């Protein structure tokens, strides 16, 4: 898995609460059987005028000028600033795949939906939870300051603003460890294969109907 240590990136704001994974990547693109090709259709319905379909040349579609990620000042953004309950709804991992392929490496919000939050860590995308008023302040600064960047230091769990203000953030130590070292989680779990086998034997003994 891709590592995440320190990122200095341009910030783009998406100023609405409850952004669901259907909005992040609509259903028609979930028919793919690979993990790539989702970046061009990230936020498809908000980003383009015409309805999109798999197999289209998305570079030829007409963009909605008013959508934030279509504005020149946010081109190349790597940090998405969002509102409450970001990533709610469907469990589709295509959502973090699309965000990552588009160029995002971190999402900052006051809260995330659980499944989306977990899926981010499997894909080198760092979700950061900050208090709502801190996020509010960042929204004001991003909107007022073209070229607004943040420096995210995961090992130090610190965000630095252009004014040099430091904002600390919390993160689960295991999730941090996996991301900082880019660990293969399955490989890590398989180190405990003997324990899993031992558990399974006892489990079968206790609940034989689960193995019938």
């Amino acid at each position: 898995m891709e590592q995440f240590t320190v990122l200095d990136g341009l910030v783009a704001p998406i100023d609405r609460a409850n952004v669901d994974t259907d909005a992040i990547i609509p259903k028609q693109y979930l028919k793919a059987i690979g993990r790539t090709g989702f970046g061009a259709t990230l936020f498809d319905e908000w980003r383009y005028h015409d309805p999109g379909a798999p197999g289209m040349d998305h570079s030829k579609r007409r963009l909605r000028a008013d959508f934030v990620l279509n504005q020149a000042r946010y081109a190349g953004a790597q940090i998405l600033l969002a509102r409450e309950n970001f990533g709610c709804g469907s469990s589709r991992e295509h959502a973090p795949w699309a965000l990552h392929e588009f160029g995002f490496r971190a999402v900052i919000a006051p809260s995330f939906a659980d499944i989306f939050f977990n899926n981010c860590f499997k894909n080198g995308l760092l979700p950061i939870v900050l208090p709502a008023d801190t996020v509010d302040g960042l929204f004001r600064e991003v909107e007022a300051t073209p070229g607004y960047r943040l420096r995210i230091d995961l090992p130090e769990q610190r965000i630095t603003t252009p004014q040099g203000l430091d904002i600390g953030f919390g993160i689960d130590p295991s999730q941090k460890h996996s991301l900082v070292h880019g660990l293969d989680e399955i490989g890590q779990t398989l180190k405990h294969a003997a324990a899993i086998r031992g558990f399974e034997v006892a489990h079968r003994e206790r609940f034989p109907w689960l193995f019938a």
Partner: protein
Amino acid sequence: MNAQTLYDKIWASHVVREDARGEALLYIDRHLVHEVTSPQAFDGLRLAHRKPWRVESIVATADHNTPTRDWDRGILDPVSRLQVETLDRNIREYGAKAYFPFGDGRQGIVHVIGPEAGATLPGMTVVCGDSHTSTHGAFAALAFGIGTSEVEHVLATQCLVTKKTKSMRIEVEGSLGFGVTAKDIILAIIGRIGTAGGSGYTLEYAGTAIRELSMEGRMTICNMSIEAGARAGMVAVDDTTLEYLRDRPFAPQGDLWDRAVSYWRTLSSDAGARFDATVSLPAADIEPQVTWGTSPGMVTSVSGRVPDPSDEADATKRSGIARALEYMALQPGTPIADIALDKVFIGSCTNSRIEDLRAAAEVVRGKRVAGNVKLAMVVPGSGLVKRQAESEGLDRVFREAGFDWREPGCSMCLAMNEDRLEPGERCASTSNRNFEGRQGTGGRTHLVSPPMAAAAAIAGRFVDVRQWR
């Protein structure tokens, strides 16, 4: 020993190991697989030269992409067909306890066929690459949705790396009024606690109104736990649970059944068990619910009105309401009963079981779909539900009223097949999500119960099913 919640009990019986920080390896008993979120997981397995840990845990079906008519023509969309064929290939290569492929008589929505086959049992851990896996919690199972990387992880290790959540007890005491269903209970709960209210919690639904529900009703409630932000929701075992499971194909038989039942009888929260939060909702206060916005928490009763954003003090919420009303093309203050409809969809893993179809058929019997409704469709949750309904003559009731009677699948809940709303169309839907574009780009979804959807199809607008004649 301390009093334990139902969740505590199932969690404790599945922990392989737990570190000092509370991160656990949780053993998974049942892995449900469908075509959309599994191809990349099987690919990952293949690339790493790994094998599934226990294929007997896998129950698979194709449901999201499959058409709901003209099955003899196969799947016409080549992209959908490739995805379904990829599942066929993966199951052929790796194996499964059971596979219900496209066209099979027992194929259907994964969250309908699992319980129907007895593949979901009390005390199990159940996962699936699908957020509505919470459905299976109705059987006192710990069931939740996972992403594709986790699907691969469970395939390879039979475990998930996870942490224990907090627990919330939701009590619905008293009896439901006439015409009020499980769907109205869960929509009212989401309206109360919000779409993030259950975030970080496992929910347990309790109280007399829950106990009085059938397993179908309990599944409807647990199904939408995710719409309240909770990954899992559950209901304790009682006679209703056991009666549903008896003699199901994958349920234990004979002595093993008796042994299982004596364990299952312990699967409820102990008296005095501690919950991190408790919410109470009197059943008598719950009216038939209708969503008016683009999030399941944007809901009111059928006797209510579309809200006015200017009444909301919080700025983010205010702009959210205004944006939702613009998308839904609704004016503040409009009575819900004045909202006219273009399409009606009865189906989805929330409401496509036999009881749902019976309740809807009761409302439409001997009546006709209104002229302004372009399409009213019933999509049974599985082949078995469909045949049961047909043996009861429900298909005739629907057809004679002007409804389409379709083959099983996810259909217009998420519109991955050709069943969808066109831009601007307004739909009464028994599904679970009213997000922008969920049922088709530009489509407008109102979530309701099966009898409310059926009544709306006949009247051409929302009506209070409690006054239905």
